[in-house]
């Protein structure tokens, strides 16, 4: 229990270091781009687009804002990300970090 605050600090430092590496090297943007591409390829974007249309149709354009729509579709968007895509992303992050000497 006593070292709990230290652990938190250490974890935060570790996170910051990894994050910095990912950003500095441009890997974070590449990974996000990969994720976007995978989401298109697997049909996630089309599925969500159809759901988006359905929500607008049901609520009526005059009774919905962009923020409402984002709030409505985001949980579904999260749930629909295929496990295979998540696994690939995680693997890519791990592989990248394994190649970095000072982490």
């Amino acid at each position, binding site marked *: 229990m006593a070292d709990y605050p230290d652990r938190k600090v250490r974890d935060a430092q570790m996170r910051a270091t990894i994050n910095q590496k990912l950003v500095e090297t441009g890997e974070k943007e590449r990974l996000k781009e990969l994720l976007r591409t995978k989401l298109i390829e697997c049909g996630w974007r089309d599925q969500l687009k159809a759901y988006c249309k359905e929500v607008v149709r049901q609520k009526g*354009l005059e009774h919905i804002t962009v923020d409402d729509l984002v709030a409505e579709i985001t949980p579904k968007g999260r749930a629909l990300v295929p496990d295979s895509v998540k696994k690939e*992303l995680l693997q890519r992050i791990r592989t990248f970090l394994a190649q970095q000497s000072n982490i």
Partner: protein
Amino acid sequence: EYERSKNDSIQDIFHEMIDETVHDQCRDLSLRQMRDVKESLKNESIERVGTSLIVDLVDDCVSKECQAISHKTLQEEETLRDLK
């Protein structure tokens, strides 16, 4: 401990990346969808209004032409009658 911390950080960053991307994509889709629906509703409205304006224009023109033709025909017929 070091590996645990590293692993937790990777998991956090991974989830954050998924969340950010999903949110960005959802916002992009929402903006596009709202824009497309607005555009499509506007086009449908333009088509309906355009058609109705033409119907009114034709009606108005036909009414005026019919009045002019009626006046002229009656005048001509009266002139013919008077000549006889």
